[in-house]
């Protein structure tokens, strides 16, 4: 396993999680301020940039690795995004949602690794 794997997998994961948070923040703000507000455009731009980075880094990884190796790391994004939404976006995260996200994350990892 070469060094780019250990660098690119975390980059892909961070880009994906931050992209989702930026996009959610932009769309939440757009309900009140509309799409012409500078803050909404900035968050939307950051979100699209992060998701584009994730897209190309994932393409690079998929060209060299099996889907079953890359995908379990994507599975972790479920629990990370749920926790990040609670911390950064202040969404309500009760025990049921946390348990649900944990089970989905574990399930995705198992499905992908098989």
């Amino acid at each position, binding site marked *: 396993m070469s060094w780019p794997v250990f660098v690119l997998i975390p980059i892909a994961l961070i880009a994906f999680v931050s992209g989702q948070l930026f996009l959610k923040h932009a*769309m939440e703000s757009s309900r009140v301020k509309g799409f012409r507000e500078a803050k909404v455009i900035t968050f939307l731009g950051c979100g699209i940039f992060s998701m584009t980075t994730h897209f190309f*880094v994932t393409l690079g990884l998929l060209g*060299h690795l099996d889907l079953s190796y890359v995908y379990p790391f994507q599975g972790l994004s479920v629990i990370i995004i*749920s926790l990040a939404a609670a911390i950064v976006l202040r969404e309500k995260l009760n025990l049921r949602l946390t348990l*649900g*996200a944990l089970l989905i994350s574990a399930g995705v990892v198992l*499905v992908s690794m098989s």
Partner: protein
Amino acid sequence: MTHNRRFGFANPWLLLGFEIICVLVYELLQKRGASETANLSQVWSWTGITALASPLTWLAMVIMIISLLSWLYVLRYIPLSIAFPLSRAVDVLIPLGCWIILGEHISPRRWFGIALVVIGLMLTAKPVARLEEKL
């Protein structure tokens, strides 16, 4: 039921389902496109740029844009901590689709993973009925 509840294609739950199908299709195309072009350049292939030589990658990008637009609409109305876990239903649909349509074998470990995702989806979807009333 509230007065601003959204019906038809404006319903964010329907668009969430549409987004899941788009992700299912573009992830398969993305993998095919990346695999086809992995040997074009040893250095640049890690960046994903060489995958652009495949038409499948371009098709994946078009479907990804459609899925992104649907996802943005979903995010406008549904909390990320609910919408994102539900969107991972795609991880159950891919192996189940391969089992039902292609007759592929599913290992016991994969069945266990599918069961965990389904239970997780059910737990996450429970508050959806209450949230639906707010839309």
